[in-house]
């Protein structure tokens, strides 16, 4: 009985690659993962918003996670994906990520909460905790902050 309960506390994350780091996105927010497609630019919006795409008749804004995090923007590669997440407040939003790796399940005791005094600006803003999967660290993204916060390098 006890064991089952512990198991049910595990949360599934989609492990994504951004540059050299691994990040995790809570799978319950993920609506869809699609290959890159033509993005229609929208004028006069924040630079990290790349524009909008059409997914089955729905217009969905696309955000560059790299730009948002203050990373260098890179060319689209074979492994680039759009992760469409669904937020109650904003509806659906697409995030451009370098690559989608796998789905990992992390139990609460595998996650270390982030301390506030970390020097890394990105971590401070967008990461809610760090999990360890097979010896690799996975920073878990706080989607609310990612979506809501102004980009790290926004003027």
């Amino acid at each position: 009985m006890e064991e089952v309960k512990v198991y049910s506390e595990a949360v599934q994350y989609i492990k994504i690659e951004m540059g050299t780091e691994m990040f995790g996105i809570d799978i319950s927010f993920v609506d869809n993962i699609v290959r890159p497609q033509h993005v229609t630019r929208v004028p006069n919006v924040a630079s990290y918003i790349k524009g909008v795409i059409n997914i089955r008749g729905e217009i969905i804004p696309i955000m560059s996670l790299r730009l948002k995090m203050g990373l260098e923007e890179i060319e689209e590669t074979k492994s680039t994906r759009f992760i469409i997440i669904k937020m109650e407040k904003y509806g659906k939003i697409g995030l451009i990520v370098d690559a989608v790796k796998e789905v990992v399940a992390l139990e609460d005791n595998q996650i270390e909460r982030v301390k506030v005094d970390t020097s890394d600006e990105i971590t401070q803003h967008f990461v809610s905790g760090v999990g360890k999967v097979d010896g690799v660290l996975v920073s878990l993204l706080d989607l609310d902050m990612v979506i809501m916060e102004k980009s790290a390098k926004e003027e």
Partner: protein
Amino acid sequence: MDVSQYLEVFIDETNEHLQNLNTQILELEQTPDNMDTVNEIFRAAHSLKGMAGTMGYKRMQDLTHAMENVFSKVRDGEIKVNSAMIDTIFQCLDAIQEYLDNIQGGGDEGTNDNAAIIKSLNGFLNGEAPADDDNEAKDDGEAQGTQTQEATSDSGKNKWKDIKLAEEQIDVIDAARKEGKNVVGLTVYVQEACILKSARAFLVFKALEELGEIVVSVPSTQDIEDERFEYEFSVILITDATVDAAIAAAKGVSEIEDAVGGLLEDVEASDASQSKEEDEAEVTLPEVTTGAVAATGKTSDTAGNRPATAEKKKPVVNRTVRVDIEKLDDLMNLVSELITAKNSLVSAATADNEAANDVGEHIEYLENVTTSLHESVMKVRMVPIESVVNKFPRMIRDLQKKLGKKMELYMSGEETELDRTVVDEIGDPLMHLLRNSADHGIESDVNLRKERGKPEEGSIFLDAYQDGNNVVIEVRDDGNGIDVEAVKAKALERGTITEEQANQMSDKEIINLLFLPSFSTAKVVSDISGRGVGLDVVKSKIESLSGEVDVKSTLGVGSTWTIRLPLTLAIIQSLMVVVGNEKYAIPLGNIQTIESIRPDDVKAVQQKEVINLRGNIIPIIRLSEILDCKSTKAEDEDLVVVIVKKGDKQAGLVIDELTGQQEIVIKSLGKYIQRSKVISGATILGNGEVALIIDPNALI
């Protein structure tokens, strides 16, 4: 009983009945002797009462009941319609409307008993009541709070004994008897908590029909289907089965409280009692069967309990569109066509090359179907403006009394259809304009009208018609017109414009000042109009619906207010253009012409670029700058300029390339992207890509 799920229907239908009553009573005022109208009113009042009762709105029920009583008397020719009565009835309708608004707002009818109105309604009954026993009957009716559809009865629960049989029914029964069949009378009581009374009744009918043939039912099957019965109904059944079997069959249906029955013995006797009862029924019309009293009593109880539970509830009223079944059939048809078309495409794709040549044909067919489907869906969203404008004759009548001016409202084009969202919003602006016409338009001084050669009675016209992709609604009056000088003086006094500006402004520009917030020229502020809120509200409301409002006026002759609205907000014709390799759509409704301009024809005036187009100086806007992208055109190439207009203003939008005209579906960019003013939405192109829609109104 939980009736909240019917609240929407109740509100919809009550609105309909109220509207109908308003219209009919106006008509009755003109022709007090028209029995058709009286009957119609009686029916509407009766339905209102029934509905209010079912929903447990006791006060509303009492009020409608008093009104129904009056019309019951009028229908029987016992009292005559007079103008005092009409006024009271209108008050009564307003009070019902108030209940309804309360219900709509919070699920509770409110606490106003409107005793005064009920009293004066009853006054009409008593004041001119002809005979004593009639009075008695009436009082009974009032006290018990319901009226009967069946004859009076002393036969207790076995109401089937009161069923009156027509001659041919008696023949049928006689024939059945000769064949040795049983003729069974049954009265079935449905539980009062039952929500789908008619469905239960239907099941009972079905169960009984398995046993034999139902000769007659009271109320009629039609009434039962429409739920026009209290909690019981009676049938006569011809069957091989016994009485007990029939009763058991009826009781077998769930939510049936009880069923009683017996053999119908003597057809002749019941025939005789029929005529007797008919006499009785005529005299004691408003009287009540005992069962019905009990039923109403219980309904009242639930009414008493209701508000307590209702308080917690938020209004649960969704906006609905009532759809003509034919329109739905059309849709269904088209969807099946669509599936057929898809299937033929699939088979063409999987077949060999020869068949693949047909693909073009199939696609053409598919295109036809989608276009029709598109139109049909649009039509489903369309409702006639009738629902909005029908309340205006009543309003004008009230204004007439209030203002002491004689005037008449003439309406045309009520059947013109608009998108539901637009129809919902258009009521208030129209009301403002009509009030404005009644209050400021029509001259208060009858002699002045005579001097001007106009009939004593002022005329206000409300015309609606479709004009291409727009619907035009005109409010016209033969009144005073707008006094340009008075507006000018007022504007100067208020400091809205300077003396210098005033001298330069055209009459039209000055009239347009009326649309500015808090600008009222009425010398006397009345509670009808003239508080300075109104015209600016009208304008902003219409503009929020992507429409425009315009006024033409001649002093001494009258004014015409013209509202122009797009047929629908969801689908528009648009011009597809390319700016810096990106595709954009410009709504066709805004576009006047498309011009090719040589670069050296562009002049600079006050640092703004303008062109001279056939004598008009038009500012030009380079979309590539606004949209923050690079034009693909060389500097010495001719400019493609799309001339757009907003009211009287024009502007030229410089684009790189035209790709053609297309019908587009407007989609929202969503909540996340902070919408830039220039972009009004997005649409999906044939290849699945997204194109943004430019809003020229924001650019001018």
